[in-house]
């Protein structure tokens, strides 16, 4: 049995949607989600050997997404995945207007302001078990235009690996090639019918709108988990 703790934001909805099917195909897998919208998970701290929310609203989101747990007890898991933080791009990003060095510096600054580092650091302070991290999915093209991005995905992953993960003995996981059009965009098929976090507890709640470009669906989650799982079973 491999017990994986997934600490994420709304993007973890795709993995959650796919988790039942994935676990059926991988009986050794036990996935536990601690997901909260946007940056709500910034209100966490290490308390009594656990990584715990600092307010009831966040704890309630974790109860909903984990199936009743309010805090992460490292003893209960074999590995940890920090999912969906970092990798932000903005419509105004114009890569052709900046040098490669500046684009990398800007990307790193954005990564360092996100929650990958704080979450990995907190978890590493609690456990020596394997830690993984993945950026939020690349957005899908909108109105036929592919999103702008300061750095290609693989360079951004490498930057996060070098500056954030390596010092903590953690490992970045790239977005599966099968889900990407290229280094900047996810294939639009994977945003169709994407899950909202609220659907974790209320499956009948409406999915994202048809033009959703940032959150991915269950098929994306399945491909992602399939690509990731070998990391937990080396060899």
């Amino acid at each position: 049995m491999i017990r994986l703790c997934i600490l994420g934001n709304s993007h973890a909805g795709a993995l959650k949607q796919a988790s039942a099917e994935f676990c059926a195909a991988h009986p050794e897998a036990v996935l536990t989600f601690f997901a909260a919208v946007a940056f709500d998970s910034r209100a966490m701290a290490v308390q009594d050997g656990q990584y715990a929310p600092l307010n009831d609203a966040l704890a309630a989101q974790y109860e909903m997404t984990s199936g009743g747990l309010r805090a992460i007890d490292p003893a209960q898991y074999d590995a940890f995945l920090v999912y969906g933080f970092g990798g932000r791009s903005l419509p105004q990003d114009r890569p052709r207007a900046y040098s490669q060095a500046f684009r990398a510096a800007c990307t790193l600054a954005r990564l360092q302001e996100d929650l990958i580092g704080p979450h990995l650091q907190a978890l590493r302070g609690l456990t020596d078990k394997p830690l993984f991290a993945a950026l939020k999915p690349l957005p899908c093209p909108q109105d036929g235009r592919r999103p702008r991005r300061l750095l290609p995905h693989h360079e951004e992953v490498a930057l996060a690996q070098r500056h954030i993960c390596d010092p903590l003995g953690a490992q970045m996981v790239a977005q599966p090639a099968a889900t990407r059009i290229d280094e900047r965009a996810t294939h639009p098929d994977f945003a169709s019918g994407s899950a909202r976090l609220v659907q974790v507890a209320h499956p009948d709640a409406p999915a994202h709108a048809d033009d959703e470009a940032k959150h991915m669906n269950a098929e994306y989650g399945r491909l992602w988990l399939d690509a990731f799982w070998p990391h937990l079973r080396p060899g």
Partner: protein
Amino acid sequence: MQARLVIAPPARLSCGQLLTAKAALVPDDPPHPYSDLPASAYWRSGVAAQLPGPLTGLWEPAFPIAPGDGVATFGSCFAQHFGRALRARGYRWVNFEPPPRKVPPALSLQYGYRQFSARTGNIYTPTLFLQWLRWAFDQAQMPPEGWPDGARLRDPFRPRLEPDGFTDSAEMHHMRRVTLRALRNAVRKARVLVFTLGLTERWVDADTGLEYPLCPGTAGGRFDPARHAFAPLNYPQALAAMADAMALMRTENPDLRFLLTVSPVPLAATASGAHVLCATSGSKAILRAVAGALAETRPDTDYFPSYEIISSPVHGGRFFGPDMRQVTQEGVDLVMDSFFGTMATRFPDNAPAPPAPSKPLARDVGCEEELYAAFGPRA
């Protein structure tokens, strides 16, 4: 005429004081040019009587700047304060080469963003400004020169802008074209262009005449005495270059107006052979004369006396830091308060909304010429 004074003044009075004294003592004398001037025209009332407080009435704006008017800023490091102050006080500072959003301001500054309306870096001399403009408007070809720096390349015309230089020649030239496009936009779309004249000392390629913002070898490149020449500007050269630059800009934007200032920041170092204090005086005198001459002769041009506000002996150097070179935040604030206060008083209908609460620190600007000081002996 002095023999007609009713009461002989003390011998130490100056000529102007003699005339003032005479005007006061002989009220029935026929009027003359010094008998009916405003208080600001007399040192005693315009300066001495206002001390130690800040001097008022130093500037009469030649034209209004409305909050919606696009204002571009270029020049020496002191010009960076203008851009920031314009932004902070609700004016429309135009920036045609901005950094990406959601990037720490310190990082943007480190890479030369948000300093000027295009990422030219500091432009200290009128000739360097003219060189940039000629490239921007296809009157001269952008040179291929790059300075190797390990495996990377520095742009000789803004060697400190990218902390680690560029990947290769293609990237360096591409990024220069990005800046030239931004410079074109700034000239064509601004309503007012603020230019702060900083230096007259400059280094050029003796073969091509190309001017470098910093002496080769100090911030990249390798100094070659056979090729790199010290070519300080004299008054006619500086005046002609500035006039040519303004004429070129007006060709592109006939409505453009100019606000000239002279940086009060002394030279960090001089290659002239003179003492740096004397070289500073000479350089600032030339630049001040150029700015004054252009403002007096061109209706599209104004001069704002930031140089006088900071540097005048009446303030006893109190707006300079301990090294008597760096302008303090108090000094910067005084200059900006004077500028915007006068503008609001003179053109009340154009006053923008109240300023934002935070003000930038005087040291938080990029000043490449300071690099020269690093080559001098330690105190």
